[in-house]
């Protein structure tokens, strides 16, 4: 009891000092820009969220902590890849923290759960990764912008490239969940040959021996697979151990061959073709300075996820600057975002009518640069490619 009495005034004084400390700068300076970043920083798939966050923070750092000249505060919360967490965090950010913009989500199922509630509350959502078809089509929203891609884009490019190469009998593999089915649908939209086999594996599967034996027996010309994260590492290692990479070329989207994954797969991935909207060897000043700064700051090569996080920061920067730091008029800010007047690290970039990117897509090959296994661009597959759902969006 006695102790409590002594402590109480201390707490009071502390609380007063703290609240004074927090409120006084706001009186002096203009309202800071508040950005809520919900992303995956722990558990499986954390490397993707960390890359997005690091890319975004690098963008902010290069603008001296001020996007569009306004003091910027980033509230960063880990969703641990769980839909429930992401929804809770979003609600807190909207109601309690009163953020201006939400960004950061990696996974499509989380985006589907969070984005509508963010836009409904009158806030802006800038997607640095997930681009589910529904949000690009019928459920598109004037406050939702995707600065990465629509989910199908990279698969469509792979379909086109495989067709261009004259491969006529392709084996398809993806996990049995919505993004897996979208991937195969996207591939088939541009692929003109026959399908040697179409296999849906369990989400999170670790061993592919059974599938690989069937695959070999089907004797395809090529294999196209979409197995993001750890599933892709498992598959590529086992594909190589089975001696299949000498017989049958492997194609995939960039998601299975980012820098982190290549480090874990090693030589087994050499020679694999993958499609991407970005690579670190794209030659433009924005990209050169991004790649250099990222390596200096974090001591590793940036991945496409990092490039998307970085572009998200630059997009916000350009729009905030364009309205002179005044976010009170949503309409003006929205128009400024639509213009996308920033130097994207991927080169030419603009938004389509559904506020998803219209951009070039490349095919890269995994090769060995000295001791490091990494990607280089082979050719451009699509120029100014737009997603297939834009026509369904009534914006």
């Amino acid at each position, binding site marked *: 009891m006695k102790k409590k009495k002594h402590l109480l005034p201390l707490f009071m004084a502390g609380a007063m000092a703290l609240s004074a400390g927090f409120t006084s700068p706001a009186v002096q300076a203009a309202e800071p820009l508040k950005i809520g970043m919900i992303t995956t920083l*722990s*558990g*499986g798939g*954390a*490397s993707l969220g*960390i890359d997005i966050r690091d890319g975004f923070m690098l963008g902010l750092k290069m603008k001296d902590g001020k996007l569009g000249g306004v003091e910027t505060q980033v509230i960063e919360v880990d969703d641990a890849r769980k839909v429930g967490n992401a929804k809770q965090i979003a609600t807190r950010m909207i109601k309690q923290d009163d953020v201006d913009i939400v960004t950061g989500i990696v996974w499509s199922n989380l985006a589907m759960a969070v984005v509508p509630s963010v836009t409904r509350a009158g806030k802006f959502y800038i997607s640095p990764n997930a681009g589910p078809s529904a949000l690009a089509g019928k459920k598109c929203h004037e406050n939702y912008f995707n600065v990465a891609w629509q989910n199908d884009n990279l698969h469509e490019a792979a379909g086109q490239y495989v067709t261009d190469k004259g491969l006529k009998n392709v084996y398809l593999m993806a996990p*049995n969940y919505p993004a897996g089915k979208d991937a195969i649908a996207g591939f088939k939209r541009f692929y003109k040959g026959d399908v040697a086999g*179409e*296999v*849906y*594996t*369990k989400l*999170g599967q*670790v*061993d592919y*021996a*059974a*599938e690989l*034996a*069937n695959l*070999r*027996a*089907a004797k395809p010309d090529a294999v196209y697979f979409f197995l993001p*994260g*750890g*599933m892709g*590492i*498992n598959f590529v*290692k*086992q594909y190589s*151990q*089975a*001696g299949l990479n000498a017989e049958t070329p492997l194609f995939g989207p960039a998601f299975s061959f980012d820098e*982190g*994954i290549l*480090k*874990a*797969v*090693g*030589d087994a991935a050499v020679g694999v073709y993958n499609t991407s909207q970005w690579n670190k060897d794209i030659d433009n000043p924005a990209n050169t300075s991004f790649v250099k700064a990222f390596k200096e700051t974090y001591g590793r090569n940036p991945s496409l996820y990092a490039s998307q996080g970085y572009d998200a920061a630059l997009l916000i920067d350009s729009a905030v600057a364009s309205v002179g730091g005044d976010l009170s008029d949503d309409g003006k800010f929205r128009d400024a975002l639509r213009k996308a007047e920033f130097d994207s690290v991927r080169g030419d970039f603009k938004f389509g009518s559904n506020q998803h990117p219209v951009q070039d897509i490349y095919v890269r090959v995994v090769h060995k640069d000295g001791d490091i296994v990494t990607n280089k661009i082979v050719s451009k597959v699509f120029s100014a490619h737009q997603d297939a759902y834009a026509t369904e969006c009534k914006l």
Partner: protein
Amino acid sequence: MLTIELFFEQSLNGLQQGVMLFLMAAGLTLVFGIMHLINLAHGSLYMIGAYVAASVTQASDSFVLGILAALGAAGLTGMLLEFSALRRLYNRDHLDQVLATFGMILFFNELVKILWGPQALFLSTPELLSGTLEFIPGAPYPSYRLFIIGAGLIVALLLRHLIIHTRVGMLIRAGATHREMVGALGVNIDQLYTIVFGIGAMLAGLAGALAGPMLAVEVGMGEKILILTFVVIIIGGIGSVRGALVGALLVGMVDTYGRAFLPTIMRELLDPASADTVAASMSSVAIYVLMAVVLIWKPRGLFQAYGS
């Protein structure tokens, strides 16, 4: 299109998956059967085995050293875990144990992330085992998978010898059923439990090290195999190592055959689009159907633990 060769190859795959599951299940079933402890953190020991094997192999260029280091690291971590925390849970109910060991999963996942970073580690196949052997005509089989089958079967034999023919094994069997009596005879039961836990942890570490060259060495890799492992020990009978072996092989075979042949079978019955989806869903529940069938037939699993 089912040929004899393909069937044989898929059987080998099933055997290999079963052996891998056995290494995990043997330790879990010993701990579950003897100490009545549900240890969800068993998968974390598997992860530690894989991470240590990857780091040591990379540093020393020797996969053998990597495996030995993994055995040591997982065994020590296991014993430390038992001594410092799990020991207090033996007399608590299962829900407390689940909660506490689930907390340990989170702890170990974050610890590994702090020590090694969030990105997956690289562990290459040892040079000697990186090729394929074509003893089935037209279906070259990865030598590394054959190596796993061999290693797993040797471990099974060693474990059998340990439990049936050694003093420690005798005490393990006795301690499972007559704990107080063994204690009254002057055996240090606490110490015995720590040793048993250490053996289980080493087996999990070995499984992790062996899995490393085939799988992604990443945070959370243990949870993926843990669920299957629980299915194995429930089918095999909790506490029985023989049951763990039979259960593991059954689960490995059923899972592999399901994934390998259900799509072909379903395509005979349905149109291709729905056949693929139905087959994928059916093969992922196949082992749970197996578990249900076994439990209806033998509610306590295929084999009984020693004496009970």
